Each structure stands twice: as structure tokens, then as C-alpha cells.
């Protein structure tokens, strides 16, 4: 989950990383007050979960409160790569002599965290890596050895930084490493670190991503930053339908029946599990179908959970039929899925034979499952019909609706 710049900077402030003075403003009026609080010329930066703010015109400069107010009114109306602004960070403007880049992230091949450091900050780091490799260092560190500042020192020193600059830059990078490790980040980046005319350093912009799986571990931090549990930080906020799907999944702890994402098609999907859902969603689209939703069922959810998910999908306006499909299942019981889904269709007031376009859940307890489906006249197939073929049959049935 991505943090906004103002949140990432708060994390840095607590880690004693030097920062320019800044105040968060949600309205033009707040920005005017904030500008006088900060004092002097300010930079106004849109708070969005996306890069490319400068290009989009979502970063502006002002000399005083009135200018800050006007600029903020403009910035709040600008979306950046489709992302809505949640406010403007009003920050003191500093004259920068040189810019540096520092980041800590995971190297999935080495299976270790890596410190990336450059004395060419402020520009696209991929470009630096390609065109000026001598200005960029990559320093892996152990997950088992105790954290030690020398790793940060090595990263900074490798691009040629020495003398009076080495100490303060090492301290900033070491603090960033500590935040990355202690707060389960997948990316902790400061770009740029600015060297000011007086020789001191400040973090001018920061981007942090926390691992989704670790949100629970860092509930204290998220609470203190004012981030509510339901704030998913995805590319768009969850729809009501998706929030209802999360509730279905949370109703009991057995298995998964949720992870719903809303689409605007007419074919409801009850599909699983992790990889099966990705495969089947592609298969429906490849066959020319229009999915109404993405979802995941797996890990042997209860009958009640499968029924609730089915009812939810059927409640979505525009859903004509549902397709129930999974890969050959191991730990999920095909009979419990059949019972739950048929129950959900009936409780929603429909005839399972008419509403279920196809049922393909082969594997454990499939004979018992087939017996239930036969009783209700639902069309089902076994593992001899491929996932792609099953998806194509469901799509073909939609032609008449």
C-alpha cells in the first residue's frame, strides 16, 4: 500500500531524517494559512498516489499566502494519471546545490533487500542506471545480520561521495534502511535528497510502499498517520459492491470467498482460486465475454460464504447469469461449493438451472457435487472440459440474453 508524500515524510521525521518545513492543507483557505505558517516562498505539491505530478502541473510555486491559495485551488482540480488529489503539501522552498537519490527495495532474484544510491537525484533513476551506471550503486544487505550503518556508508561511498558529505548522507540512508526493515516496506525512497547552500541535507520528496500482508503488524503506525483500515490505496477507491464482497469474506474465517473487483459486464463470475481466477478471467475475455466481476474462492470456504458471495454477485444490476468455474480443486470441496452456490441462487429468487450458465469445479468430492447439480438441472462439466472451453460455453449462453 502506497503512502502519500506527507505520510512518508512524517515517517521520515520520526526517524530523524532532516526535512524542509511543511504543512498539509486540504483546501485553498488552509493552504493560505499554511503558507504564512511556513513563511517565505513555498512549493505546493498535490498529494496523489502517483508519480508524474510535475508533468501534470500538480506542483506549483507561490511567493505568499494569496498565491498559495490560488495555486491550491488549481491543483485540487487536477488528476494525475487518474488519481484524485487529497490535498496539497505546503512546503518551504529551499535552494538546492545538488540532488541525490536513495532507495531501499527488494531484489526478488537475490531474495535480499538492496540499497540503491545515486549522486544524480531528481531525474528518472532508470535512466541514470542505463546511461550513467558509475553514478549509481546497488548494495545488498543481509536479513539475518543486525542492521548496521556501514551498509549505508558503503552505498553512499560507492558513487564517490567522501569528506564532509559522507556522514550526513550515511545517516539519512541508514535511517531509510531502518524504516524499510522495521516497517515492512516494499519500497522506501527519497528522491531527491537536496544538498543546501549551507552544506546541510534535507529530504525533498519521498515515496513509500508498505507490504499489504504487514498492515496488521503496523496498525499502530497506520492509525497514527490517520489511515483507516478500509482505505485500500488501490488505483481507485473500492466500490460499494467491493466493500460488500469484503464483508462476505470476513463473515467467517474458513477459506476465501471474496476479493471482488467490479467490472461493467453482464456475466457474473464465481471463480477460483488465486491462479485459477486469473486464468478464467482471461479465458472469459478471450471468448468475447463481458465479466461483471472478478473474484476468488478457495481454501474450502463454508457453504454460507459461497451462498453469500453468489447472492451478492446476482444482486449487481445488469448481471444476467453466473459462471461457476475453478481449476481441479485440492482442498476445496466441490460438493460444498455446489450446495452453497445453488442455495445462494435460490435465496436470490432465481432458478439455478436458468441462472448458472456453467458449473466447472472438478476434483475433491465432485461426485457428490454433481449429484446436487443434477437435482437442480444445472449444466456442469468435469475435468475433461478445459477451463477455456468451459468459459467459452458460458459466454455462448450469454448471446441469447
Amino acid at each position, binding site marked *: 500500500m502506497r503512502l502519500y508524500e506527507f505520510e512518508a515524510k512524517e515517517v521520515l521525521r520520526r526517524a530523524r531524517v532532516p526535512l524542509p518545513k511543511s504543512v498539509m492543507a486540504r483546501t485553498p483557505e488552509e493552504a493560505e494559512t499554511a503558507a504564512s505558517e511556513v513563511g517565505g516562498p513555498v512549493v505546493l505539491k498535490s498529494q496523489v498516489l502517483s508519480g508524474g505530478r510535475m508533468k501534470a502541473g500538480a506542483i506549483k510555486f507561490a511567493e505568499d499566502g494569496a498565491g498559495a491559495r490560488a495555486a491550491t485551488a488549481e491543483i485540487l482540480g487536477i488528476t494525475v494519471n487518474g488519481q484524485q488529489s487529497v490535498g496539497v503539501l505546503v512546503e518551504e522552498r529551499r535552494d538546492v546545490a545538488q540532488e541525490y537519490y536513495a532507495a531501499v527495495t527488494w531484489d526478488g532474484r537475490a531474495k535480499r533487500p538492496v540499497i540503491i544510491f545515486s549522486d544524480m537525484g531528481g531525474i528518472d533513476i532508470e535512466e541514470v542506471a542505463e546511461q550513467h551506471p558509475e553514478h549509481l550503486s546497488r548494495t545488498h544487505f543481509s536479513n539475518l545480520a543486525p542492521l548496521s550503518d556501514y551498509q549505508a556508508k558503503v552505498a553512499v561511498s560507492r558513487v564517490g561521495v567522501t569528506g564532509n558529505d559522507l556522514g550526513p548522507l550515511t545517516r539519512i540512508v541508514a535511517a531509510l534502511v531502518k524504516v524499510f526493515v522495521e516497517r515492512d516496506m516494499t519500497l522506501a525512497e527519497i528522491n531527491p535528497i537536496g544538498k543546501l547552500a549551507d552544506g546541510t541535507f534535507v529530504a525533498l520528496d519521498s515515496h513509500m510502499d508498505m507490504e499489504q500482508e504487514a498492515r496488521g503488524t503496523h496498525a499502530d503506525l497506520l492509525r497514527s498517520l490517520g489511515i483507516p483500515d478500509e482505505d485500500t490505496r488501490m488505483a481507485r477507491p473500492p466500490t460499494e459492491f467491493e466493500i460488500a464482497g469484503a464483508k462476505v469474506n470476513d463473515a467467517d474465517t474458513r477459506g476465501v470467498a471474496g476479493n471482488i473487483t467490479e467490472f461493467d459486464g453482464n456475466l457474473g463470475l464465481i471463480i477460483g482460486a488465486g491462479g485459477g481466477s486469473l486464468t478464467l478471467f482471461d479465458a472469459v*475475455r478471450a471468448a468475447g465475454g463481458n465479466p461483471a466481476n472478478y473474484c476468488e474462492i478457495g481454501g474450502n470456504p463454508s457453504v454460507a460464504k459461497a451462498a453469500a458471495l453468489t447472492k451478492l454477485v446476482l444482486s449487481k444490476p445488469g448481471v444476467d447469469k453466473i459462471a461457476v468455474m*475453478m481449476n481441479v480443486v485440492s482442498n476445496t470441496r466441490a460438493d460444498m461449493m455446489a450446495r452453497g452456490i445453488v442455495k445462494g441462487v435460490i435465496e436470490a429468487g432465481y432458478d439455478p438451472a436458468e441462472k448458472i450458465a456453467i458449473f466447472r469445479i472438478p476434483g475433491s468430492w465432485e461426485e457428490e457435487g454433481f449429484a446436487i447439480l443434477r437435482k437442480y438441472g444445472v449444466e456442469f462439466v468435469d475435468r475433461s472440459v478445459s477451463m477455456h472451453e468451459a468459459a467459452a460455453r458460458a459466454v455462448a449462453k450469454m448471446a441469447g440474453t
Partner: protein
Amino acid sequence: MSILIDENTTFIIQGITGREAVSMTREVLDYGSKVIGGVTPGRKGRNVHGVPVEDTVRAFTERERVDASVVAVPPAFATDAVFEAIEAGIKLVIIVTERIPRKQVAQFVEYADQHGARIIGPNCLGVISPGKSRVGGVGGAAESTRRAFQPGVVGVMSRSGGMTVEISNALSEAGLGISTAVSIGGDAIIGSTYAELMPLFDADPATKGIAIYSEPGGQAEAQLADYMRSSGSNLPVVAFMAGRFMDAMPGMRFGHAGTIVEGRADTTAEKIERMEAAGIRVAERIEDIPRFLKERIG
């Protein structure tokens, strides 16, 4: 032949008294696997379907040979369980548990490296060498497992547990069968990647071809492409790429934890291009996998 496990492999299940682990125990016993014990702290002296339970891993390793352990404990206890298994000298640790933060995964992967142990997973269903043994729940009930996994010539590696079964089933129905299938796990960091398991398949005389299931996110496919170019491997590899729809939806989360796209190189389009450039054939449909492999294996 097979890789990682065979008919003599002995193993324990950590977290054996959990609901899903109890069913897994029944299923691996029915399949004929040599599960010799289970560990749940405080449950020493009990048994699960006749399999003895102890409080510690060492209680087993001190009295008999233990080749592998399946870790099926809740995420909060998983790291501790893996360290215990490695420290007790177990050389193959298969982690079923999902939702372990990657920092902890990286810690026990590094610890395993230091101790010459191999990790499969986390977030996987295990390893099966059809007709010999199954370590983990992959395939479910024994009868359904025998049908989906028939002994044969294809090595399977999959980032999805469910798709390990689906693809193996397609290979079995096509008459090719499986040498060993490995559910490698769906997380961003895993103990053994495709490229790290390839040398084992290359050295296995029973394996004549490879089928892999891949997804958006991570470097595993690029690493495999590099391996195929540099290793001189003669095995034909067919890959299936799921989640193609995700390329158009950056910033949204679908599927496994590992599918999160963190850069352009993580998209399916980029992965397909890299794999094809390295001679890996990419299938559009599951049923194409056995067809493409048959063209090469004959």
C-alpha cells in the same frame, strides 16, 4: 526418477493438528507417502490418523531420519517453525502457509542457504512425484490426485497451487504424465524459483519436458529466460501466462501476493516477450500445453 522427493522420502508435518493439516495427513497417508510424525506444541503423545505428535521437531530428528517437513502453521508462527526445522537439520522444508510478510520469508531463505537446506514455498501446495510420494496436499483426496497426476515425463512448476493440479491433469489426460510437479508458491519471494529448480530437472533422466504456470509480478520468468539462454538446457519448456488482463490495470491487486506489479518488467506482455526470446513457448490455453510439448518430445 524424480526430483526433490521419491518413494523413500520421510517427512513430518508442523502444525499437524490444524483443521486443514488433519485432512492433508489423511490424504498423504492414503496416497502412500511416508509421513512419520507431526509437531504441535503441547500436543505430545496424541496422534493424527495414527501419526504420532510431538512438541518439537528435534523429538523426531534425534531418533530417526527426517528428509522433509511440511509447515502448515498460521502465518504468525510460520517463521519460528521454519527456523526450528532447519536448525534440526531437515534439508527440505515445504511451506504451505500464506500471508507471511516477505521480510520473514527472506530471513528463513537466507538461513536455509547457510544450512544447505532447500525451501519450497511459502504459499504452495507441495511436491508430488506420481506413484512415489506426495509431500503436501497438492491434488487433494488420493483418488482425485492419482487421476490428475499420472507418472510420466513432464516436470511441472507453478506459482499457483490449484493450477499445478489443473496443468498436471491436462498432461495426464494427454498421456504425457508427470515426473515431478512442484507448487513453487505464489509469493513475491519464494525459496525455490523456476530457474533454481531447473538444474534438478535437467539432471533427471525421467524428465523430457517442462510446463510452467506464470503470472504478473516479479523476476522469476526473466530469471528462467536467462537460465535457458546460459545453461545449455535441452529440455523444451512451455509456459502458460495468466492474468493478462492485469496489464491494463496498474495499481489494482488480483490473485496471489506475488502478482503485484512493481515495474514495467513485471507485466505479462514483457514476460512473454522475454520468455519467447529465450526459446520458451508460451501457450494461450491450458490445452495447448500438452500439444506443444508433444511436438517437441515426440
